[in-house]
């Protein structure tokens, strides 16, 4: 199982080489892997249909309870099969669609990486594994949307998708970790087995909101729906695969997966039904407003995702079945229609539905695929889309507000009906339209996938028992978390759902008839409104503006301002805890030792004199006096090493400071005015006094000698050295020292670089001197 998930990543690394070796037929070679994976997963169909589940686990970070564990049940198997099956045809399709593209090899690499990520996501049992693969799908999606990276619109869309889904992913991580805390396990199969623990915990609401934030951003629910249509900047194979059939359903998958653990509460139902319903209507209306085939399909995808969330929110057994049936139907017809849209674009050079007509004769295979898929999408018998829609109405009629729910579903479905006919039929009938280049049918790879998926919509409609036994039944049981009877059929007698279907078709036909007029009207209304897409730009601009404001506040370019902020922070850190928590300040009797007093007096006078000199050089020398006194103190109290080092550091500090200050224009006298002088003295005084009180309170606590004794006992016996300090530095804690000297070396390089730039700043014509 681990190998199956990782195989696409391995092949992804080699994909560019395969492309280079095999050339344009690389698609056929690379499609072997998803096909083989499909066969591998298909072997689970029988056992899973009879109620078995499988767990495959490999240790990853055992100390943290993180394992690469995978869980196969009806739900994950349905997704895995869709990913590999549609993936096979997408790889073929991409090979034909992007034939001759310079970066085709890179494209295959991204698609295969995405496939592996998506498989890992739907199969993951461990929450951390789930999150890792979840983010990988966001990242690969970013790479694929931005595939045409020389276009600014592509780059914006890619970044937008990453910001929205990546942001949601972070919320999801928090939610998953809270869940793991509450449930006491990192494994979903364990967590979800006892959902009441989660539902009755005080953190339930927090978990729910965080998990929903992840799911809603990924599955483009209102108000995060705007990134999905923008993602249509990606090449069409990507739109067909990621942004209709698989990745955007990850959010739906997550909700379905969490249903046994988090679902069933009032708040869950209210949130999912209202957001799902709003998304359904928004997407369906925006779909009719657009005239670009891909954008229309993208908006109906948003609508369909809304419908799925809506159904999961209802949560009744029939609604769950409807969700799984609709998801299954949608993956087939929407995947097919996207590939059709790409083929039309490829064959004619335009995707504007107003300009397309009469293509049926020149593109027969594409037309057949489009017609079949559109019939399934519009929910007409005997297609599987019809069964799915019937079950949707059964589900809504089963819910708590049957009439309202059904009305929402009918409106959404009727709008999608109209779009299905506009996309699937209008371009192929009537007189040949005016297109940028002469329409022609594409190669096999361009229509085989669409035709296969469209035909399956019909086959599963006619033989609904197959879908019921192997796909919908096991998946619905997995989502509900309890056994249920699933019985799909095409015709169940003239009952309420059929009536709803008839209303849908009548309303949909009206929308189709009035399509152009409605579209123009909607375009006027929608474009005048503020939308979240504009909001995204405003948000990003605001974020950048805020960052600029903060940067300008702190990064003034004036060293004295940096030092002011640094020392203010230091003062706050030193003073506040001592004021708020108190300190163990104990005044001990001062030592009666003339030498100590003399050194103390020297240090004190040296320190006190610094603020009163106006000569910079004198100030530096006085600081040197202070440092020397400290070195004397070390010497007096038996730390010759420290004294030695202190002496050298002081000497070099004075030398280097003098060198630095000598080149500054302000060298010479201190020019600060009285107010600034007082302010700086106050800050310096606060730090000094707080540091002193802190030290006194620290030394009031008895010294822990464990470490000192450890090192003095072992310094000679184990490291053969009598100088304990040095032995610690170079032997016991040599790794620390290695890190420190690396820092010293890097700091040296950094100073050299900075000083080399100094010449450029002063006079751009002067080249920096070669420092050798």
């Amino acid at each position, binding site marked *: 199982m681990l190998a199956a998930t990782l195989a696409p990543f391995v092949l992804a690394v080699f994909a560019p080489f395969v492309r280079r070796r095999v050339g344009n037929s690389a698609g056929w070679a690379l499609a072997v892997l998803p096909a083989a994976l499909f066969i591998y997963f298909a072997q689970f169909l029988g056992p899973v249909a009879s109620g078995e589940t499988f767990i495959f686990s490999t240790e990853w970070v055992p100390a943290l309870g993180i394992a690469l564990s995978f869980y196969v049940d009806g739900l994950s198997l349905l997704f895995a099969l869709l990913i590999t099956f549609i993936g096979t045809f997408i790889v073929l399709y991409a090979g034909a669609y992007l034939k001759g593209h310079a970066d085709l090899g890179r494209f295959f690499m991204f698609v295969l990486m995405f496939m592996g990520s998506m498989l890992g996501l739907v199969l993951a049992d461990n929450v951390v594994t789930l999150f890792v693969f979840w983010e990988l799908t966001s990242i690969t999606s970013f790479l694929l949307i931005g595939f045409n990276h020389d276009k600014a619109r592509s780059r914006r869309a890619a970044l937008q998708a990453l910001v929205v889904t990546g942001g949601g992913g972070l919320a999801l991580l928090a939610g998953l970790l809270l869940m793991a805390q509450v449930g006491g396990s990192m494994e979903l199969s364990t967590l979800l087995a006892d959902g009441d623990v989660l539902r009755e915990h005080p953190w339930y609401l927090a978990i729910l909101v965080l998990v929903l934030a992840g799911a809603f951003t990924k599955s483009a629910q209102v108000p995060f729906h705007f990134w999905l249509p923008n993602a249509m900047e990606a090449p069409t194979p990507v739109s067909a695969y990621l942004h209709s059939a698989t990745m955007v359903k990850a959010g739906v998958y997550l909700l379905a997966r969490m249903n046994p653990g988090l679902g069933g509460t009032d708040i869950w139902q209210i949130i999912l039904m209202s957001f799902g319903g709003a998304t359904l209507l928004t997407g369906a209306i925006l779909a009719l407003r657009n005239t670009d085939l891909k954008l229309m399909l993208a908006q109906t995808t948003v609508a369909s995702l809304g419908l799925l969330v809506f159904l999961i929110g209802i949560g009744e057994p029939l609604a769950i079945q409807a969700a799984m049936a609709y998801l299954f139907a949608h993956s087939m017809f929407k995947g097919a229609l996207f590939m059709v849209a790409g083929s039309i674009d490829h064959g004619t050079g335009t995707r504007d539905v107003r300009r397309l007509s009469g293509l049926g004769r020149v593109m027969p295979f594409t037309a057949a695929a489009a017609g079949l898929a559109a019939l399934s999408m519009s929910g007409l018998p005997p297609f599987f889309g019809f069964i799915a829609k019937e079950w949707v109405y059964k589900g809504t009629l089963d819910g708590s507000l049957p009439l309202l729910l059904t009305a929402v579903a009918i409106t959404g479905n009727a709008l999608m009906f109209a779009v299905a006919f506009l996309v699937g039929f209008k371009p192929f009938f009537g007189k040949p339209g005016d297109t940028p280049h002469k329409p022609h049918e594409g190669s096999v790879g361009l229509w085989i996938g669409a035709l296969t998926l469209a035909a399956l919509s019909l086959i599963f409609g006619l033989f609904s028992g197959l879908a019921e036994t192997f796909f919908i039944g096991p998946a619905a049981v997995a989502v509900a978390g309890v056994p249920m009877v699933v019985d799909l059929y095409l015709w169940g007698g003239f009952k309420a759902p059929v009536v709803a279907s008839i209303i849908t078709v009548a309303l949909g036909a009206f929308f189709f008839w009035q399509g152009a007029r409605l579209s123009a009207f909607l375009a006027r209304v929608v474009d005048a409104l503020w939308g979240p897409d504009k909001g995204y730009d405003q948000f990003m601009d605001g974020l950048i503006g805020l960052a600029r404001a903060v940067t300008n506040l702190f990064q003034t370019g004036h060293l004295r301002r940096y030092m002011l902020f640094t020392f203010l922070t230091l003062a706050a850190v030193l003073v506040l805890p001592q004021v708020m928590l108190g300190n163990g300040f104990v005044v001990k009797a001062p030592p009666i030792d003339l030498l100590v007093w003399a050194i103390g007096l020297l240090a004190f006078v040296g320190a006190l004199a610094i603020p009163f000199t106006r000569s910079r050089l004198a100030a530096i020398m006085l600081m040197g006096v202070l440092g020397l006194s400290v070195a004397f103190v070390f010497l007096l109290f038996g730390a*010759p*090493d420290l004294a*030695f*080092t202190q002496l*050298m*550091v002081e*000497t*070099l500090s004075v*030398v*280097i400071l003098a*060198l*630095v200050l000598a*080149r500054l224009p302000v060298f010479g006298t201190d020019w600060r005015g009285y107010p600034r002088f007082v302010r700086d003295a106050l800050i310096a005084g606060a730090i000094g006094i707080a540091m002193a009180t802190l030290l006194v309170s620290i030394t009031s606590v008895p010294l822990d000698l464990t470490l000192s004794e450890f090192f003095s006992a072992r310094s000679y016996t184990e*490291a*053969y*050295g*009598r*100088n304990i*300090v*040095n*032995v610690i*530095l*170079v*032997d016991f804690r*040599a*790794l620390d*020292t*290695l890190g420190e*000297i*690396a820092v*010293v*070396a890097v*700091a*040296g*390089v950094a*100073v*050299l670089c900075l*000083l*080399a730039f*100094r*010449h450029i700043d*002063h006079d751009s014509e002067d080249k920096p*001197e070669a*420092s*050798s």
Partner: protein
Amino acid sequence: MNSLILRTAVPALAGLMLLFSIYVLLRGHNEPGGGFIGGLIGASAFAIYTIAEGLASARRALIVPPITIAGVGLFLAAISGIVSLLFGDAFLTGQWWFPAFNPDLKYFSSVVLFDIGVYLVVVGAISGIAFALEERE
């Protein structure tokens, strides 16, 4: 700097300081001293030489660019750690060689090599900074 006293005294002084810095480095194992302090003394030697004799002479005296010395030091320190890996110990575990002629001479080891690396990093980095600051535009 144009001071006769400084210019007369410094060459001898700097040489002595450099010698002393190596002495401090090598004796650091058992007496006060070690690579870090030794390096600081060595750097001071070059700093004072630069002030007295000028940057060009100081660069000549050092032969290689100071930052190269720091790089070599870092490399030596890392190598002394990798040596332990070759003997199957953890990174930076001390490796010792007790010479046959005097088994009580517990000195030759990867630890001392590491200390020499520290010395070179400190000398190189600090004299590099001092040189760069002294450089006239």
